[in-house]
C-alpha cells in the first residue's frame, strides 16, 4: 500500500504546506511564494502519474520499448508557464501596492483601507 501511493501522498502533503502558506501568511510576497510551492507540488502529482515502471524518458530511441507517458509532461510544461506568468503579474501588483501603501503586510493594508472608508463616510 505505502509503496503504491507514497509519491501521491507526499505530493499532497507538499501541496497543503504551500496552500497553508497562501491562506495563513499575512505577507503578500510570502503568499506568492506559497502559491508557487502549491502549484509546483501539483506538478509533482501529475508527473508522478506519468511514470511507468521500467520506462525511460519519452524520447524515441533504438531498442527501447517502454516510455513514460508524455502527455502529463506536456500539460505540466504549459502549467509551469502559466504559473510563472501569474507570479510575475502578482509581483508587479505587489510593487504597486508597496508604492501606494508603503507596506506589503495584509493587516496594515487592511487597517489603512478601513481608515479610508471612515474618512469617506465622514466627508461624503
Amino acid at each position, binding site marked *: 500500500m505505502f509503496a503504491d501511493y507514497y509519491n501521491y501522498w507526499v505530493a499532497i502533503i507538499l501541496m497543503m504546506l504551500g496552500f497553508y502558506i497562501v491562506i495563513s501568511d499575512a505577507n503578500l510576497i510570502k503568499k506568492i511564494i506559497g502559491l508557487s510551492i502549491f502549484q509546483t507540488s501539483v506538478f509533482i502529482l501529475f508527473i508522478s502519474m506519468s511514470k511507468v515502471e521500467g520506462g525511460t*524518458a519519452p*524520447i524515441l530511441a533504438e531498442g527501447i520499448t517502454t516510455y513514460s507517458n508524455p502527455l502529463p509532461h506536456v500539460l505540466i*510544461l504549459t502549467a509551469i*508557464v502559466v504559473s510563472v506568468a501569474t507570479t*510575475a503579474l502578482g*509581483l*508587479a501588483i505587489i*510593487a504597486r501596492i508597496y508604492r501606494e501603501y508603503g507596506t506589503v503586510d495584509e493587516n496594515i493594508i487592511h487597517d489603512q483601507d478601513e481608515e479610508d472608508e471612515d474618512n469617506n463616510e465622514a466627508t461624503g
Partner: protein
Amino acid sequence: MNKKRSLILREACNLIVPAVLLYALYVQFHGDYGPGGGFQAGVIFAAAIILYALVYGRKKTQKIFPASLVRYLISIGLLLYAGVGVASLFMGGNYLDYNVLAHNPQHGQHLGIFLIELGVGITVAAVMIMIFYMLDEYAD
C-alpha cells in the same frame, strides 16, 4: 546599476554571455531531438541578456536591445505562432494543421514546429527581458 564594475566581472561576463546565448540557440533548435524547445531557449536567452544588464547596467543594454524593439518582439513572436495557424487555413487545412504547409506531411510538420517554436522563443525571451526592464526601472 551604473557603478563601475570590476574588470574581472566584466571579463567574465564577456565570456559567459556569448556562451549562454549560443546555448540558448542550441536549445531552441535542438528541441526536436533532446529536451528543450522555444520556451526554455527563450528563458536562457533572456537570462544572458539580464546578466549582461546586471554587469553593464540597463542603459547600456538598452542601446543594444531598446525597450521599443523588445516591445515589438513580444507581439511578433505571438503573431508568428498564430500566423502559422492562419497560413494552414489558407492552404486548405484546419487551424495549425502543419501537414498542408509543405509538399509532404512530414516536411510540413517539421516546418510548422520549427516556426512555432521560434515564435515561442521570441515572445518568451522578449517578455522576460521586458519584465526585467520594467522591474529595474521601477526599482530606481
